[in-house]
């Protein structure tokens, strides 16, 4: 049975799905794109999506909710024909419908890993994705999430090396304005560390007024802007993403940016990058050991503690720098030797000083040495905010649990 990995770019304007073979034809991949639109037909509980939704709206057959993804993230209701719909439910419906297309191309059991990629992975987005995964189920043996930033990294790192000998830019030009991902590689470390800077340019708003001569004006504006961006920088490739680049208006700008550089239209880049990342999860290649990506969502510090393991006192890692914050969730049972405090060590990856953080278990009942069992749960709310929850489990029948819990928010 041929196995596949899937990348799904869940974006507020266009969703793209890439499936990639894991078999002999390793680079065999296909992508389809669906506008992020859902249309409820008037008077009936029937929904169309994508291009069909757009057509239904134009034909006056139904109503299309606006800013659906944003509303779902905020937990807001969507009002259609006087009835309130849960925004999350509608996003779920859209994802379900788009996946029906995928399951016509490959069978569900052939999907071994599924990677969602989104513009920004914050607490609300992770919650929404968790809900989607839970409700839909059977999307692949393992389901992962990552940001566009990371999908860009995965895409680039899997291109021929001459493309990323120097820095790489992704110019994302869509409403409301231009954003740039600037990927840099620090070759002086082992493994080599890749960083991506996100830059936003509100002054470069999307040109919507297509009056006569707009192409020349847009070209000139972009030319001047790119001159500034490229000044003094070492960039080997540029990817152009988004509908802002449509309309064949780039002439002077292209001459500028293509000079001693490779320039590509980054069509489906995030979905393809996500599928490549999914493949890395299932069958890691040699790149995993050579390069590490420290993106926004990666932990920038190691978290650990000194404890006794099999009689020896040693450092025990709880969370490793470089992991995605939303994937880092663990728990352990510990026995307190004595006292009512637990000490964690935070070691920043940037070489800054190691920090010790004590969590005081205030009010913990006094018990003899080694007669308190605690459950320690570690999770993150952002890449910087760690949440430690500790629960008193007592000590069997000898010392029943007090039921006490302590929660600490720790900046790392």
């Amino acid at each position, binding site marked *: 049975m041929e196995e596949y990995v899937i990348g799904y770019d869940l974006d507020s304007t266009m969703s793209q799905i890439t499936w990639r073979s894991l078999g002999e034809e390793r680079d065999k991949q296909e992508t389809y794109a669906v506008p992020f639109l859902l249309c409820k037909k008037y008077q009936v509980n029937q929904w169309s999506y994508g291009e069909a939704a757009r057509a239904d709206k134009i034909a006056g057959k139904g109503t299309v909710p606006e800013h659906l993804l944003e509303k779902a993230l905020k937990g807001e209701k969507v009002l259609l024909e006087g009835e309130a719909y849960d925004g999350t439910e509608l996003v779920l419906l859209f994802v379900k419908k788009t996946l029906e297309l995928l399951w016509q191309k490959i069978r569900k059991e052939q999907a071994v890993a599924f990677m969602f990629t989104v513009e920004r992975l914050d607490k609300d987005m992770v919650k929404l994705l968790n809900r989607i995964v839970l409700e839909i189920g059977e999307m692949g043996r393992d389901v992962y999430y990552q940001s566009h930033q990371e999908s860009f990294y995965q895409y680039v790192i899997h291109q021929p090396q001459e493309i990323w000998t120097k820095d790489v830019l992704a110019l994302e030009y869509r409403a409301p304005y231009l954003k740039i991902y600037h990927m840099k590689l620090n070759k002086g470390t082992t493994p080599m560390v890749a960083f991506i800077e996100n830059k936003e340019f509100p002054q470069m708003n999307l040109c919507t007024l297509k009056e006569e001569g707009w192409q020349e004006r847009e070209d000139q504006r972009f030319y001047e802007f790119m001159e500034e961006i490229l000044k003094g920088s070492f960039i080997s490739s540029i990817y152009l993403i988004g509908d802002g680049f449509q309309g064949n208006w780039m002439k002077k700008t292209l001459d500028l940016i293509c000079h001693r550089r490779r320039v590509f239209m980054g069509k489906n880049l995030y979905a393809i990058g996500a599928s490549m990342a999914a493949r890395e999860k299932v069958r890691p290649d040699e790149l995993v050991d050579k390069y590490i990506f420290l993106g926004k969502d990666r932990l920038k510090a190691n978290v650990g503690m000194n404890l006794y393991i099999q009689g020896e006192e040693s450092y025990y890692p709880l969370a490793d720098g470089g992991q995605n914050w939303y994937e880092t969730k663990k728990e352990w049972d510990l026995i307190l*030797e004595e006292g009512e405090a637990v000490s964690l060590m935070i070691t920043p990856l940037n070489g800054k000083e190691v920090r010790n953080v004590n969590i005081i278990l205030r009010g913990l009942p006094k018990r003899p040495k080694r007669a308190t069992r605690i459950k320690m749960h570690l999770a993150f709310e952002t890449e910087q905010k760690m949440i430690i929850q500790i629960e008193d489990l007592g*000590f*069997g029948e000898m010392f029943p649990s007090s039921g006490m819990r302590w929660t600490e928010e720790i900046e790392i």
Partner: protein
Amino acid sequence: MSNVRLCLHKLAKNPYYIEEIHLSIYSIEELCFYLCKNPELLREDIMDEDLSSFIETELGMEDLGKELREILEKRGSLTEFVGAILKGAFYLNDREWNKVQNMLGQSPHIEYRLRKKRKGDFLLESQKYTLAIEGYSSILQEAEESGDRQFYGDILHNMGVAYAKTFDFPKAKEKFRQAYEANGSLESLDHYLTVVRLISTKEEYEEFVRTKGVDKETANFIGEKYGKCLEDYEKSDVKRRIDRIREKKEKGNFTEYFEDMDELLEEWKEQYRKSMKKS
């Protein structure tokens, strides 16, 4: 130095029951704690095939389970058996193990009444108050007849603690009084007066102090201790929790008030039931 150790083995779904002390064991750490607590009280009946199976299947420590079975098959010693468990769990350092080993050596020579008292002490510490009282009662007469006033007084004192923990203050008061008479311990006197203060008004307590001829310094000390307890209570989590519940009542939120109050009472009842359990 670290003050935590990582638990590498799971909690048992079906506990191992130690009949002698009416205790169910759920983890390797609990078993080790028990073995180290009173090694001199351990007898060969702990060398049990069921314990080996429990360690192997319930705790998932297959190697240790097999090792224990081998010791049983070759009729090894108690020290060897206990040592294998404590070492297999990496529970003790060498110094601690030497101490436990010495105490294990004393096991065959320990007197019956002392064994019984230690067992009662363990039950008391494990908050099995009814069982502790039963255990102490069974050796009380023998202890009195032995003429060892210190030993007899200590048993009475501990019975007082167990009664106080089950809120039977009149009996607790009587046991502390008897304990003080037997061993003259200031701790027993202290506990006796504390119980008197607990079940009296301030005026009654002062009357008691005057008529019983309690010296002023001791009486004041108990009064201050009582005051400190009240202060600590005012700052405690329990007090804060009760205040929060009362606040709901004052705001007219009666449904939540009754729900929260029921929950708190149920927790207290459960704790009390556990402490009164006879098995």
